[in-house]
């Protein structure tokens, strides 16, 4: 029997080595695997390279991981936000290396890693600072940059529901980087609201097939989903 379900988040993140490259899903708070990041904080791996769209918000999740000094390098598109003070301070102090990648190139590089594409030509970034050091090639009269795949040892992502094979469905804009990160990492770890019976997910609507998933952990349903009322949920954004 294939059973990718883990008992708790500690078991889900077990074995992440120092020096690993870890992709972390989410766009702002939506889809950010907060409970897995907390478990990674607890687990202790250090000298990490993190690939994520943002560089953390407030003091929790990715911001806390960065604040702990365990992230050596971050690859992202939008580190600076109104509440990214933890990253900001560390970056200004020279305590973290930043590779800034336009969001679409970030997504496509992650997709390329999962899809076995050795590299691709993109018009995004031509003539800008992010083109520095990159091959430029004119195709059909338009300049393109060569971009290379972005792989990871681990992906930590958040989905809505999973079955024990690791098939995933997401919810609204929390889908964002989940499907492509799941395919780009050697080991993909997913937190979900709920694990359902095999066969309970409609095969037409599975977004990430279990082939891309290694470990699944249920972190409990969020009260605001159950109630259909989102009073006070603003503070969770």
């Amino acid at each position, binding site marked *: 029997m294939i059973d990718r379900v883990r008992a708790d988040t500690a078991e889900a993140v077990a074995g992440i080595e120092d020096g690993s490259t870890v992709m972390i899903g989410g*766009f*702002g*708070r*939506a*889809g950010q695997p907060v409970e897995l990041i907390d478990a990674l904080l607890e687990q202790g791996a250090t000298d990490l390279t993190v690939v994520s*769209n943002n560089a953390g918000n407030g003091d929790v999740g990715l911001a806390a991981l960065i604040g702990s000094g365990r992230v050596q390098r971050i690859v992202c*598109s*939008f*580190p*600076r*936000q109104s509440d990214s003070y933890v990253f*900001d301070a560390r*970056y*200004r102090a020279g305590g973290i290396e*930043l590779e*800034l*990648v*336009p*969001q*679409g*190139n970030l*997504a*496509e590089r*992650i*997709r390329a890693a999962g899809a076995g594409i050795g590299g691709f030509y*993109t*018009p*995004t*970034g*031509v*003539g*800008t*600072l*992010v083109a520095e050091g990159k091959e430029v090639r004119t195709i059909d009269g338009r300049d393109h940059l060569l971009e290379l795949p972005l792989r990871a040892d681990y992906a930590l992502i958040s989905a809505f529901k999973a079955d024990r094979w690791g098939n995933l469905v*997401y*919810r*609204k*804009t*929390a*889908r*964002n*980087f*989940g*499907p*492509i990160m799941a395919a780009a990492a050697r080991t993909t770890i997913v937190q979900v609201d709920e694990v359902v019976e095999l066969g309970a997910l409609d095969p037409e609507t599975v*977004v990430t097939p279990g082939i891309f998933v290694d470990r699944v952990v249920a972190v409990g349903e*969020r009260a*605001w989903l159950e109630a259909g*009322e*989102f*009073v*006070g*949920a*603003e503070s*969770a*954004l």
Partner: protein
Amino acid sequence: MSPGIDRRTLAARIARDIPEGSVVNLGIGAPTLIADYLPEGLEIILHTENGMLGMGPAPQAGRVDPDLLNAGKQPVTELPGAAYFHHADSFAMMRGGHLDICVLGAFQVSETGDLANWHTGGPGAIPAVGGAMDLAIGAKNVYVMTDLLTRDGVSKLVAECTYPLTGVRCVSRIYTDRAVFDVVDGGLEVSEVFAGSSLEELRDLTGLALRDATGTPSVTSGRTS
């Protein structure tokens, strides 16, 4: 007092140029205001790069769904006909030329349509580009919404950008508080001047040889078939 129109008036002005059926991405900040002025009853589809078409307005108080955000991480809603997709698919839409219009803010726009809107290049500045470069090169029509002058009174329309670029020759139209400019071969054309400004004054403020096209109706291209 400023002789220009205010942001909301400008947002409403831009909204009038968006044809029914367009797929539109409104950038973070001021361009987001345009959504409030899209004509009731016309179907215009909003794209948000974090994976959605058919985005609706902000939710009512107490109805915020933390899984449903726009690119500025603000809560939004879903309209009938919406669709969700992942980030690679979302940027494939942009890069593949499927968006009709995007509206972006700007630090500077050059008279050849170069855009600078992501980085001051200053020492100590933390760069953050997000999806701006992808939008700038991807949408069929890239519009800029901005004040003509910085707070210090310097023109944002320039012969050549001095800030780091977002995209090269990508802007097609610039909506400012004083006038509307089109980027055409050979420079900028003024298609409309708002009350309180004049073409002479605009030439003075920008130092650019602006062509007068205020008599010509403007055209927006959309997906037509």
